[in-house]
């Protein structure tokens, strides 16, 4: 119908997707999108439904009896939640910066062919990617030898450098930075640090963004470190807080037999279903807001290593 259609070349026509296929793909993607969206909507709906109505009618996509009592609960617990949010933000920001600096510099060093210990260190980095020391030994080192227990560093340092990221960096630097470029900088009299900061980093933004994103999400989503190393619950991250709210009810039910008559009383003190869902919503919001801004880097980051033309 459009006037432009008249100028279509034969090749364009050939490449065009057939109407049926097009609708088919649309349908598939609409379905996939719904699959992702509906659970979030259900969680949102539960968080807005009165406890009474959940008990009587079960879950529904639209709240039958609207109630803000779950968010009231959050407001009461405000201090706890804002503190956890603060910890999460701090850990994510600090950890991402520190992690990117450490990972890329290590990757760069390993990528230089004229570095003597390259072979040995690459193996040292590579082996823990395949085998790791296990929970007990790392816990012992981190808490008893390094004394990280109950500090924010316990949330940051163990996750800052991963072998996988170092290898990504190494491969990137090896394949995209021409040796000649480094050599020319050396001829101009630049030291190693200067070459790295002024020559290598500026042309390596995609890998910085990728590693940054990986770390950012790893830090934001992490709850295990909190659970392990943090005894002072004021230092819990948001995810750890949510996780404990969610798992406490299950754990109570599992241990019901050893609690005897106290069980019923304890269950009654647990946050209600809708309150727990409300916490989940509160946690999702910052990521949901931040994601669109990161998305373009994320896509360019994902294609690192793919063939470029």
């Amino acid at each position, binding site marked *: 119908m459009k006037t432009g259609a008249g100028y279509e070349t034969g090749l364009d026509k050939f490449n065009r997707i057939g109407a049926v296929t097009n609708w088919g793909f649309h349908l598939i993607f609409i379905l996939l999108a719904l699959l992702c969206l509906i659970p979030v909507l259900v969680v949102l709906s539960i968080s807005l439904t009165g406890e009474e109505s959940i008990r009587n009618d079960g879950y529904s996509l639209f709240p039958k009896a609207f109630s803000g009592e779950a968010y009231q609960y959050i407001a009461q617990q405000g201090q706890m939640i804002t503190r956890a949010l603060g910890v999460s933000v701090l850990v994510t920001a600090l950890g991402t910066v520190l992690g990117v600096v450490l990972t890329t510099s290590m990757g760069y060093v390993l990528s230089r062919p004229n570095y003597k210990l390259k072979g040995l260190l690459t193996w040292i980095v590579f082996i823990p990617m395949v085998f790791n020391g296990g929970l007990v030994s790392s816990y012992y080192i981190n808490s008893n030898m390094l004394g990280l227990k109950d500090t924010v560093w316990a949330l940051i340092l163990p996750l800052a450098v991963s072998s996988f990221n170092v290898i990504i960096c190494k491969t990137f630097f090896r394949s995209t930075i021409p040796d000649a470029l480094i050599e020319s900088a050396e001829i101009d009299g630049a030291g190693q640090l200067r070459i790295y900061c002024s020559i290598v980093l500026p042309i390596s933004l995609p890998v910085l963004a990728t590693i940054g994103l990986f770390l950012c999400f790893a830090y934001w989503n992490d709850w295990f470190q909190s*659970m392990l190393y943090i005894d002072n619950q004021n230092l819990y991250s948001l995810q750890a807080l949510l996780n404990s709210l969610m798992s406490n009810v299950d754990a109570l039910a599992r241990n019901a037999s050893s609690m005897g008559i106290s069980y019923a009383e304890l269950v009654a003190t647990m946050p209600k279903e809708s309150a727990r869902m409300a916490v989940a919503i509160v946690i999702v919001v910052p990521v949901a807001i931040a994601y669109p801004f990161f998305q373009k880097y994320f896509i360019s980051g994902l294609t690192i290593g793919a063939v470029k033309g």
Partner: protein
Amino acid sequence: MTKTKKKWLAMGAAAALLTTALAGCGNSNSKSEPSSSPSSAGTQTAEASQSAGSGEVPTLVWWTIGGQVPANFDKAIAAMNEYTAEKIGVKIDIKVANWGDWDTKINTIVNTGEPFDIMFTNNSKYSQQVNMGAFADLTDLVQSETPDLYDFIPQKVWDGTKIGGKIYSVPTYKDSSLTQYWVFDDKYIQKYGIDTSSIKKLQDLDKPLRDMKAGEGKSFYPLSLTQGDGFNGFFNGYDDMTLGLPPIGVKVDDASRKAVSVLEQPDVMNDLKQLHQWYKDGIINPDAPTKTEAERARPFFAAQAFPGAEASWQITSGVEKYTMFQIFGPIYTTSTIQGSLNAISANSKYKNEALKYLQLVNTDSKLRNMLAFGQLGVDYNNVDGEKVIERTSDTWPLAAYTQGTFFNLAVTKGAPVDQWDQVRKLNDQATSSTNLGFALDISELGTEVANTKAVWDKYRYELLTGASDPEKMVPRIVAELKAAGLDKLMTAAQEQIDTYFK
């Protein structure tokens, strides 16, 4: 040359920067609690090094289980410490592992030898931890240091905590015997003329439940179950020897103490069939195998209780009147006693002080109430001295059952005033499982226990909510359990029982 020097210098500077940063953080986080400072967490207990220099009141680290710590937690603990420092010269630093995290957290602490003084534990871990040498042998100490505590707790209960004939922990003397009740919402009893006195076993429930289903309509499920709980108390007739694996057990009244494959016993099989029939007929809710949280108000349920417990259920569930009747027990088994224990670290510098503290918890009502209910005036108020209290918040994270006896604990306003006396009466009437005192030593059986538990976890939700057909599933489960080492476990259990009771 100069290049290398520069490099070392840079590294040194970086290291220095890092350490200052770490130290700064440590200081800012340690606040008022000296024992939570990371710098003092060495091989010695934190508080040991702290008090050795100044000769101050020692602060014991007590690891326990609980919920989310509220903002006023430190204040409440400080109030307790003030009281106990004056009374027995001991302070505590209570560390709370969340209900859901407790398993992992406590395992890592024990495995890595992290210092602590007192630790809450229960039947799922106790024997293992004792075998690892984590806990101090209290057999003599408790008699010489804290005779009041030793006399207060009945001998039967002490026996239940023994491993290899030695006491490694202070049991919580509460509803240490198990009494199972079945509870009906009274309105259905009236409506359908249910005669509770004639109900003795699972099959007797068939008619009342069916009547209720027929009368209340299609979407009404008279027996509402959850995956974790199943039909509460289903395996009560079998002593699990603290193994926590229901497919192996000894019948509680079996004088010959024979370890059997519980699922294959005719009585258990009949009950399983009954559950499955109910599930098929819509008497059990169809989502039971996946349901995690119980309904607040249920027309019928099974629970551990004591005379008068219905009062608090009526409050929490909003049901006008519950009618309950005793169906099983009271009975002592090793597991019921080991449901809540507080052990003292083998490496603690303050074993005597820790015991004295536990004695005070068990004998002093004021401390007991503070531990159980929180900060006086904020979390609870005294209504009748230390005997009756009213809770004014629901954020206090510690659970009374993990700390000490119920019998010096205040009653919550609204509950029957003689509540704890009733519990005590049940304890006094309780019979003992023929296996009392015996706890299976699984130190050599780790693989088999883990494997069989994995198999059991795979099937138990469906089996115990009636969703799967026992005639088909039980043989299959038993076959898989056998492949995972059930036979070896049973032989080992039998051998250990025979040696223990020789």
